[in-house]
């Protein structure tokens, strides 16, 4: 809907909106308190009345690491670029767990909160973006554990850790973009919500979590590796590994390709979401 802010009082025109529009950042700024409280709510509510509390944030990646180390590292002997398999997989699981939980959270964000947006107005774009931000806390905790694990194996992080914030931005951008797409789609077509869990599993195996990117270059050549870079999590995960473990140089080509995809996903996601936003209360 078009809004018109005059000098002293707010004047709003409500009419059927046409066409496309991107995110109204001014409006988001007005509602930043709400955004903050919603993120806080997501974080607090998850672990309330649990004994372990935030420890749950690390159980998933840790256990996955143990299972992967036994199966892929131990039994199947998947190559790991010369690093001990547990660290190899855990350093990838940290960003991956963030990505998959942000994605699942974001996809079902609209469905879960129907009463909020059928009863009161605020920029709906906040809803899928909330889990994307809230899961960063879990990510932070898992990252700290990662440093602990690295210390155990005597691995020192390289100077490339300065690039980690960039990788985090990329992660957030990708999750937001896909989140905006899927949350809007899931509201109308519930299949998306049902499918996201197992699609997320597939995506994990498509990402270099349990196997190294070097495998692709070996089997399919360098050009294939470049195209693989379009999968944004490929660049992010290998980037994390390089920065933390230092076994390979930073995969800038992958990161570059991934950024293109991320930005595209974000922009198209925002456009699609804003266009569908007007019918949310009706379609629910």
């Amino acid at each position: 809907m078009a809004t018109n802010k005059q000098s002293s009082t707010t004047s709003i025109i409500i009419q059927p909106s046409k066409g496309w529009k991107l995110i109204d950042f001014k409006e988001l700024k007005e509602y930043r308190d709400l955004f903050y409280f919603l993120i806080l709510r997501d974080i607090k509510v998850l672990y309330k009345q649990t004994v372990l509390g935030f420890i749950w944030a690390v159980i998933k990646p840790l256990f996955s690491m143990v299972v992967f180390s036994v199966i892929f590292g131990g039994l199947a002997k998947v190559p790991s670029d010369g690093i001990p398999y547990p660290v190899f997989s855990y350093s990838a699981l940290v960003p991956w767990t963030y990505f998959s939980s942000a994605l699942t959270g974001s996809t079902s964000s609209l469905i879960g909160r129907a009463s909020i947006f059928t009863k009161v107005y605020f920029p709906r774009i906040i809803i899928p973006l909330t889990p994307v931000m809230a899961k960063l806390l879990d990510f932070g905790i898992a990252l700290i554990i990662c440093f602990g694990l690295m210390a155990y194996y005597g691995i020192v992080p390289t100077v490339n850790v300065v690039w980690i914030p960039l990788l985090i931005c990329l992660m957030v951008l990708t999750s937001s973009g896909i989140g905006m797409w899927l949350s809007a789609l899931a509201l109308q077509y519930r299949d998306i919500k049902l499918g996201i869990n197992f699609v997320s599993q597939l995506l994990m195996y498509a990402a270099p979590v349990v196997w190294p990117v070097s495998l692709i270059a070996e089997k399919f050549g360098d050009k294939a590796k470049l195209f693989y870079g379009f999968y944004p999590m490929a660049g992010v995960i290998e980037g994390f590994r390089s920065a933390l473990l230092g076994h390979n140089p930073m995969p800038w080509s992958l990161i570059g390709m991934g950024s293109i995809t991320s930005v595209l996903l974000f922009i198209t996601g925002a456009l699609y979401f804003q266009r569908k936003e007007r019918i949310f209360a009706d379609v629910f």
Partner: protein
Amino acid sequence: MMSNTVIKVENLSKRYRIGLKEKIHETFLGALISWVKSPIYNFRRLQKLSQFVEHENSDDIIWALRSISFEVKHGEVLGIIGRNGSGKSTLLKILSRITEPTEGRAQIIGRVGSLLEVGTGFHPELTGRENIYLNSAILGMKKAETDRKFDEIVDFAEVEKFIDTPVKRYSSGMYVRLAFAVAAYLEPEILLVDEVLAVGDVAFQKKCLGKISDVAKEGRTVLFVSHNMAVISNLCERCLLLDSGRIVIDGSVNASIECYISSIQTLNQFIPLHSRVDRQGNGRLRFTNFKISSPTRAITDTVVTGENVSLTIEYEADSEKLKNVSISIPFYNHLGQPIFMCWTRLVGQDFELVERRGRFIVEIPKLPLMPGKYSLNLYCEVNGVLADWIQEAVSITVLEGDFFGTGMTLPSVTGGVAIEHSWRYETSEAN
């Protein structure tokens, strides 16, 4: 747009797609084929939920609002009434920007606060304190504002002791008080309220009403949707009556309410008593007919204030000689408020023994009802057990009359009833 107008609605319309009856298959093969084709059918159906071909008028489309136009000035308290499905809530939703109009436009000047539901966004795991901040933010308050009003909100809700307990442990009364308290301190320039008073106990409802009327007195604009005619009548200066998405009346509160009530009652009143099926009770005795008469008219449904009226209720019983029959007739005014009741037990005149067929006659000397439309229920107990109960059994119209014998009639704005009374004067000079 005139400087004083804060809401201007022009030709607002809203269209919805509803679910249609599912196709029923007669053969198993038909059902099987339909099941196989279902993904395609489902996809098209879901896709259609958000699409409309221009000027489509298929069966599964309804127009919740049709070309609504009106203006609201600053400080007005506007009531919006209408039957369920008339479009009232849709109108508020559009003005609250929750859903978009299909056609037309609305212009609003000033900050809008919407109370469409109490406790929007409350999370059961969070404490009262956390929920206050969250809910305020959802309703549009900044954190600093909430900080300022925090103590007042907690005070209004009377939950100081429990403010740091998760809301899921609150009683439903506390929950609803807290939710309303946050909304009450919103201080918007324009307040849109949708029947939030349907929840909560009597004390809470009184508090809500008090707060809303304070808001109105502070000169803020209020749009108030409700089914409670007494509240609308008290609070609002102007009223919109909606029916099937269109404005039927825009103006006098009394006219709107009367039109609304009569549109609801019309159906029932035309059905003769003996054919009414919306009755309760074991049926040992059934009301079959009702007549009202006065000295000036033999049989009528219109009487005059101050007349001696006589109500005759004919009945049929299922056996001879029923014992301990008690009959009561409550009278309700056009707002649905009870005015008084004629009851055999009140005057110690329960019928000890009645035959299978007959009639009960009530004499009311000097009918005290002020001019207006009234609705009567008919209620009967046999031996302490409910035998027959018809609500809105009869409707009567009372015209202006000379109750006091002085030729002076009460102005009808005072409402209620006329009461016999007399005056005298005493001097206070010492003797």
